[in-house]
């Protein structure tokens, strides 16, 4: 028992240091059984992200959007959800997280038709931004200008 107490006191006296504060994965968050942990958004993550994309709220209940699901399901392993950051009359910014460089071209290709949906008369690409993320992931943001 003395050994256990010594270990505990040692741990109590430990010096605080830097540590990561990101959200854990949904399965790890559930496994922790910590009901006080901060709310994390998993609507774009894993199986949950696929389901949230496939089913959207409708007046008659959950509706499966099969047309979007085809484009959403296929790239989900490589590309996190596309985020529309800003939409004005003529300018549009689409952002996506890519898991590795080999999938960047695929992600970029997927953003273009999404831009076309927002710009039915066509668009031009004004700028492409690449930013490193943890775990080797890449944040890709493309800024578009819609044709009037």
């Amino acid at each position, binding site marked *: 028992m003395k050994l256990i107490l010594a270990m505990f006191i040692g*741990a109590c006296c430990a*010096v605080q240091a830097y540590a990561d504060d990101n959200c854990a994965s949904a399965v790890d968050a559930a496994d922790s059984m910590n009901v006080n942990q901060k709310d994390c958004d*998993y609507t774009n993550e894993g199986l949950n992200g696929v389901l949230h994309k496939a089913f959207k709220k409708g007046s008659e209940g*959950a509706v499966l959007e099969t047309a979007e699901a085809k484009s959403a399901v296929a790239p989900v392993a490589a590309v996190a959800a596309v985020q529309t950051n800003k939409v004005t009359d003529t300018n549009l910014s689409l952002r996506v997280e890519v898991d590795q460089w080999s999938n960047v071209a695929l992600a970029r290709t997927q953003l273009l038709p999404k831009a076309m949906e927002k710009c039915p008369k066509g668009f031009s690409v004004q700028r492409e931004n690449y930013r490193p993320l943890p775990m080797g992931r890449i944040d890709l943001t493309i800024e578009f200008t819609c044709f009037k």
Partner: protein
Amino acid sequence: MKKTLLALAITSLLPAAAFADVTVYGKANVSLQGTDEASYSSANGNQADGSKVELLSNASRIGVKGGEEVNSKLKVIYQFEYQTEVDDGTGGGQTFAQRNIYLGLQGIAGTLMGGHFDTPTKVAQEKIDLFNDLEGDITHIFKGEIRASNIVQYVSPTFGGGFSGSVAYVTEETDGVTKQNNPATVDTSSGVSASFGYNSSAFYVGVAADQDVEANGVDLIRLVGRLTLGAFQFGLLGESYDNDNTGVDDEGFVGSAMWNMTDKWALKAQYGDSDVRWIDSKSASLGLDYKMTKSATLYGYYTKVENGVTDVMEPTLDNYRDDDYVGVGLDYKF
């Protein structure tokens, strides 16, 4: 063709208004393991020495969790999680076996929940078990790793920057853990499990205790600490076990260390020495993780376990085990 049978089925299960608060999650963890298990008898020498290769499913699971606000100060929360065996699909005759399942109410004064889930003492181990669900899991040399049935729990809100506590009441129902493990001649009673600790991303300290949870007359105290120093994580757990029915009073400890060498590679080590579950148990593990993506981790491990074969409740010191395990596996969180 927007509506399908699948959509209709899910619609019938999940109200549309609540769907946004549902998180569906899971993981598949499969390893290919070389197992070398040996049993020795001081009277008869080597009794069994078996080597085999096994494909193992290590607590693969799928679950849903979520909640819905009743008002700005009160929320209904739930979790339903089931384990499935990826390797052979048996799972003791069940396709899905219950893991942590609860329904509760969460407010500014804390959370009250009931169901079938890990006791506060089990949860208090936090992240220090680096070989959880593998052969190096601390459950192989410690007690107190109980997922109790018919358990009601209060969890305090986090206060003071990271302090929180939990207290759980395990009923004496015959389908619960408590009475199941009691000898028929022993009076049954309810059990209590409680924990208190301080948690931050940098360090964690906690103390937990069980009274009459495993069985009537069995008490357990657990002390846990974790420290994260940059790329290094260190963990310690100590446990004291007292069984009034057998007179057994034993202790044990486990220490773990992990070095995140890069953002993809992690080296892990863990050593435990305990008399709590088995006589003179020692478990040593080494592991290497390679994080292929945010969700997929490839891992390898070696674990050596030595212990007395007989449980402390039947202290026959005649037989010993000396087991080695080496394996590679893939963990995918989806």
